């Protein structure tokens, strides 16, 4: 965890705040992989915000913050973050990186979901990657419009309204060259639409990368049993209790920060059992292998045998 100072605040569009953060101790911020997010503690909760630049030798971190529901961390930032305000944040975390072996990159964004795509676009320009962009926003609710004007690749579709975006996404997904990787970021409904369109068009799951920016609302889940490594110890995890907290009670302390499936710190290895993943960090390949989970939000749908002492 590092303390950052707000070095700049400006509008990124209607309801969107752009904050520039620098380490409070004057150090150079760590570089980050394009598409990374920064877990920021604000108003008592940790949220992940996409970083806007390409991460190469950054002099500061820029994030885009959409005003969320009252009482949330984003609303707190809108109301309280001024130049000079200090904030605590974890290191940038890469979970939505451009795939180096991709032949072409299709970037799909809705609303504030354009933020990690700006980072991808900067990197694509730097490395001469073939990239196509499809973004949608509500009428009069363009986000980071001037940066998009500047970064938009030759193949760009910008539309207004959900229906137009749905059609444009489907159309773009339908005509990509083999070897293209698609990256989608937007609200949960948008992610579900992209997933469904990609499935209809037989996209390989490993070539579709989804970045959520709303942490999903989680139900209490069903009770399940966890076995601890080779010890044979069994742990009952009741509905409404996270695996992370059940392990705490059993004296096994995992690293953690956000406790809502965005920072990735509480990752734990799973030797066997079916996992109900509910985090925003692990990719489709991790989920397909089924050998790792985030203990703060994800649960077992069968008994899980964990790689913990």
């Amino acid at each position: 965890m590092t303390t950052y100072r707000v070095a700049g605040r400006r509008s990124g569009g209607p309801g969107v705040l752009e904050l520039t953060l620098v380490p409070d101790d004057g150090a150079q911020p760590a570089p980050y992989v394009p598409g990374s997010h920064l877990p920021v503690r604000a108003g008592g909760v940790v949220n992940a915000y996409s970083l806007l630049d390409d991460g190469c030798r950054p002099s500061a971190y820029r994030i885009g913050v959409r005003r969320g529901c009252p009482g949330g961390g984003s609303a707190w930032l809108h109301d309280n973050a001024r130049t000079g305000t200090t904030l605590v944040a974890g290191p940038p975390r890469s979970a939505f990186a451009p795939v180096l072996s991709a032949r072409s990159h299709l970037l799909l964004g809705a609303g504030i979901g354009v933020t990690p795509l700006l980072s991808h676009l900067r990197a694509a320009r730097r490395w001469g990657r073939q990239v196509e962009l499809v973004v949608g926003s509500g009428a009069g609710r363009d986000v980071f419009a001037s940066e998009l004007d500047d970064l938009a690749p030759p193949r760009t579709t910008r539309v207004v309204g959900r229906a137009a975006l749905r059609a444009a996404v489907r159309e773009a997904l339908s005509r990509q060259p083999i070897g293209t990787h698609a990256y989608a970021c937007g609200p949960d409904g948008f992610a579900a639409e992209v997933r469904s369109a990609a499935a209809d068009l037989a996209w390989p799951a490993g070539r579709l990368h989804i970045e959520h920016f709303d942490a999903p609302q989680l139900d209490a889940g069903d009770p399940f049993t966890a076995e601890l490594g080779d010890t044979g110890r069994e742990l009952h995890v009741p509905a409404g209790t996270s695996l992370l907290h059940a392990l705490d009670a059993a004296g096994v302390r995992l690293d953690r920060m956000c406790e809502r499936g965005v920072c990735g710190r509480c990752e734990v290895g799973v030797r066997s059992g079916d996992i109900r993943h509910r985090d925003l960090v692990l990719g489709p390949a991790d989920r397909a292998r089924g050998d790792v989970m985030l203990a703060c939000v994800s649960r077992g749908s069968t008994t899980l045998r964990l790689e913990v002492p």
Partner: protein
Amino acid sequence: MSAETPPHRFAWPFDGQPYRFFTNVEPAGAEVRTAGGSWGATVFQADEAYPEVIAERREILRRRPRAAAALPHMHAAEWDALTWVFERFAAEHPRVATADLTDPSRVRWRNTVTGSELDLTQDGTAHPLAVAAHEVAEDLFLLDLRDGALRLDAVAATFVASWSSTFSLGMSFSDLHGPIPRLHGSGMVARTERFLRALQPGEVVRRLNWSMQPTGDLDASVDARHTWPGEDDLRRRVVADPGTLRLRIEIQHLTALPATGAILFTIATQLTPLARLVTVPEWRDQLELVLSELPEDMAAYKSFADVREPVLAYLSSRSAS
């Protein structure tokens, strides 16, 4: 060529306990005191053997160009690696080299030992990883997350031990570790791969690996073995004088590169004959403990199963007690 590492810089891998495989990873950069001296203050080695090692590195790359090879999608990661390697090396050894990276798509490099003066651009440099390998003593490898697994998608390596980095190009992390006994089924390969995938830019970690070798050749790769004497010949030499057997140490460093997230893996190799190592009494004792106890399959993997008895007799004869 034998670039022998003196005991005062030797990265002694044992701690008085029997040896088993484990994920012995720790943060890089901290100097470790040993009974013979110290090691580990830097990622890159630029010691008295450096000019000689670089000369051999360049000769092998000239003779065997495929020792540096990369899949076509790796150019960005290679450039990322080149800039990281040059910047780190120059910071660690400012009297040997300087690197100007003001513009991230251009690097100016001056090396007073090799005499190199390079002005490189991102788009105009054909094989950035090979360029970097011409300037450092370490073997360089890049792992990339492709189709759901980390894969060895670029190499520039002239000093590997008993394997072929050229043959292994494109292999998954799990397949690369296929020949190691007792590793699979332990969950260690999967755990290590997860650890590597979770590395974030700026973090540098290291581990040590060791094996035994009958000669002082840095290049012990499968690609070079046809130039070595036959196995029986080598065994006879060690039996005749076990003090000539080398302990081969790999100082391995790992980091996630900032612009691409690819994993850079470096190996610095140290080779020192047992005759020199046993002059440090604590090392002699620890070596005897490890070599006498190691199970047969691991002894075979570490390349000393067929000379274990004469080597143990030698170590015993050098005991102070």
